[in-house]
């Protein structure tokens, strides 16, 4: 009997210990399974997630700061089920750009953080290319819709020596990723297209080509376009395809914060495009990068602050300021993950796959807003090796899957 009590007592202690020290999945993801282990330390401070006072809410704490997490209507389903523990899936056990352990990520160089934050979440090196259709809405200050455009995009990354068969031999050591876009509508831009080729070397600017249906020719685009507006939109090439750390800019890591995804900011509000399923990073710890033009360089902003999730590594939000320190633009970025995309067999892609997702731009000076997001997302779409060439542009493709 005594042995049984001891055994049972030991079993109880073991059980109690396991409850205390093992991940409390019941608390982190009530009613759901699959949330990964939440990191306990991020950027040098303790981090925790516990159930909130109301059902379906969570209290997220990072150091002395805390927030109450609550699902927004437009959250992707897995995020709704798992709560902020959802971001832990990228904290460990995933390939580049998440290969660095989460407790080492704050020690990455600012340029590295920038590259992973934007380029390598936009254009994942872990899938063999992707394709989607994205819309661009330009909204006037009075709220009326000024323009609607649709673009097709196809992209591929070559980090780690992957996918080299898509590159000419003399470029294989140099090219980091390629982005192809085709304007689908309206009629005046329909058929215009281009290819951006980006390079590993910091001081080598991306190169662009541009095809216009009215002359049926591909021309090499005069460079130094990173700060220019992407055609027909109110975002820049810097926001779309020139997304690695640029040679004209200095990057500095200036701090961290518990990212709360302020719902009063355009793009974060519960009523902002509820049909566009996405992930906003609320509840993550965000690294804050400050970006300034190098001395002697004139840029479209004097300072930019960009927030990058430490777990997701994704770009979450940015603000740009002019020389007087006045806010000139505020951008919210939301990830759209693999669960919203398709693999070649029609199944959903792994949830941890990321894409550029959605951007909500609030131009403070003009009052215009630009809202854009992708859909019809396809991963590993079976792209032919010659897809990123001029010949694709001349063919004037009209819809996804044109290569099949």
């Amino acid at each position, binding site marked *: 009997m005594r042995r049984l009590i001891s055994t049972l007592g030991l079993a109880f202690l073991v059980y109690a210990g396991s409850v205390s020290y093992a991940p409390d999945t019941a608390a982190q993801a009530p009613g759901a399974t699959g949330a990964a282990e939440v990191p306990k330390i991020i950027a040098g401070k303790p981090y925790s997630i516990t159930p909130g006072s109301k059902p379906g809410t969570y209290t997220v704490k990072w150091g002395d700061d805390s927030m109450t997490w609550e699902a927004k209507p437009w959250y992707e389903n897995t995020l709704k089920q798992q709560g902020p523990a959802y971001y832990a899936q990228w904290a460990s056990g995933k390939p580049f750009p998440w290969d660095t352990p989460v407790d080492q990520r704050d020690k990455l160089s600012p340029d590295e953080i920038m590259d992973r934050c934007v380029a390598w979440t936009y254009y994942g090196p872990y899938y063999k290319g992707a394709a989607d259709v994205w819309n661009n809405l330009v909204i006037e200050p009075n709220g009326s819709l*000024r323009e609607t455009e649709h673009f097709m995009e196809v992209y591929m990354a070559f980090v780690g020596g992957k996918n080299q068969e898509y590159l000419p031999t*003399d470029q294989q050591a140099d090219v980091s990723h390629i982005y192809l876009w085709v304007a689908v509508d309206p009629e005046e831009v329909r058929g215009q297209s281009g290819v951006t080729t980006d390079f590993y070397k910091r001081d080598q600017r991306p190169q662009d080509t541009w095809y216009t249906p*009215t002359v*049926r*020719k591909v021309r090499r685009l005069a*460079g130094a376009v990173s700060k220019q507006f992407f055609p027909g939109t109110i975002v820049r090439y810097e926001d779309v395809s020139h997304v690695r750390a640029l040679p004209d800019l200095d990057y500095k890591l200036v701090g961290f914060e518990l990212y709360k995804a302020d719902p009063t900011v355009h793009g974060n509000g519960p009523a902002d495009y509820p049909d566009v399923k996405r992930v906003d990073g609320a509840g993550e710890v965000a690294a804050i990068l400050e970006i300034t033009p190098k001395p002697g360089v*004139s840029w479209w902003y004097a300072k930019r602050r960009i927030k990058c999730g430490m777990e997701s590594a994704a770009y979450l939000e940015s603000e740009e300021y002019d020389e007087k320190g006045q806010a000139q633009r505020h951008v919210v970025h939301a990830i759209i993950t693999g669960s919203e995309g398709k693999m070649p067999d029609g199944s959903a892609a792994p949830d941890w796959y990321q894409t550029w997702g959605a951007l909500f731009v609030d131009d403070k000076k003009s009052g215009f807003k630009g809202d854009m997001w992708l859909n019809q997302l396809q991963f590993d779409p079976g792209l032919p090796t010659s897809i990123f060439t*001029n010949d694709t542009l001349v*063919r004037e493709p009209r819809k996804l899957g044109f290569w*099949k």
Partner: protein
Amino acid sequence: MRRAEVSRADFVLVTIMAVVFSLSTWSVERANAYQLTDDLEVRGTYKMESYFRLPDGTRNIFNPATETFSREHLDHLMSQRNEFRLDIEWTPNTKKWGDGIPPIKVVAQLRPWYDSDWQLSSEGQGRYQQQLWSYWGNNLQHPFTGDATGNDPVFREYYIDITPPHFFFRIGSQIIAWGKSDGVYMLDILNNFNLRNPTIFEEENIKIPVWAANMNWQPWVGANLQLIWMPQWFPTYWPGLRLANNEPVEGGYHDWTYGIVSDFNNFYNGQFGFKVPIALKTPTIKPTDWIGGARWSDSVGGLNYTLNYLYTYTTGYIDYPNTGSFATATGVIREPHRMQVIGGSIDYDLETGHESIDGTVLRVESSETVGDQYYQGIVGNPKYVSHWGVLMGVDKNVLGDYLERPVFASVQYWHDMVTNQDRCNNCGAESGKFEDLGFTGSEAGMRGVYKSLMTVFLEKNWLEGDVVITDFFALYELQYHDWWIRPKVTYKYDDNTTFALGFNIFAGSPQTPYGQFTNSTNAFIELRRQLF
């Protein structure tokens, strides 16, 4: 007969306008109605362009009936053209048909058009409805051919694209563009032009589609071998070309008749007291008359290059005097001459580390044209020439440090140099020179062995969403000292509608290629509306 033709054309036009109006009012609410099925997409666009002459002037016109010249007032309305463009694209899911069947796309473009200038104006070219309207006023009477040479038909482009791995085939009536030049055509002569209005920039609207097998092989990434087979030649089609009863029926009546064309037409129509009949000979579709070309493109060290070869004909008909000299001709044979074009092009993006230089694109295009024909000396007998053309272009975005949206700037230099020519003992005075586009009888309209020009193009977008686009083009010929300047502003009213206002300003001596159009300096407006 003409009344019946006018009635038929009017009926077709009214029908089209009724359909267009109905569709436009219905389709305003249904912006995406064009996707009829998953595979089939149909789009309709209406375009209006109107040109208004600014100078108030007169012109000398030759009357073939009286064989005399007279002075007449120029019209101010040069053109009021209405086009409806229907694009049909069918992209079937070929996987349903079986494994191994490559992707295909079938494209058809229809473009009926109608120019109401001859109904609205009774001056200038508006007086010559009988001679001009059937072929320059509409393509509704000849919907399948436009006219006998098919220069602006209702059915423009129609082709099938077949894309097996590493290959691309486009078979059918199409436009194929070569070269890296803007507005200068050395390599880019697979499609000749309808010169109804030589100021139009949108080449897809004025190039004449050709039947072709356009075959491409991509042996490795970035490389492409293109083979072109064209069974039928379509000439450059200029006002004044057309014949009726072996006589130039259009004289110099059309507003955009080149000086050299009216000069020749006046001669043929009896300026010197006798008519000179013209026999037209057009290459057939027999194998001996085919056109073929090849282009290799690749990239090395960041430099994109092409190598081009084309076995073709002169871009237009050549008039050959039956006696060997126009001084004694009693008849003319009008036919093209076999010609070969050998050349290439490169472009390169400069990256030197200097901000003022980085991002500059250099373009070079060059060709040797063998077997061309130039009209030599004051008599203007057609003679064999070979000539070497070179274009150098520099493109850069400028003022990016000062403007929210920088200015795209492009500067080009082009020259053409005769490298080989026949000696001409019966070409009269100035036998070492050649009659150019503005020639009307004197040396002032003649070029030498060497001819060059420069162009500048500037473009800037304005306002959020790039809703306003301004562009400025200028051309200057270094030997003739004549000019063409073209500013234009385009406004995107909404997603489906754009308006544009522009000017074409010409200056120079009356016999120079651009100076000849001084009295055709004009303002123009355009409206485009996507219907569905």
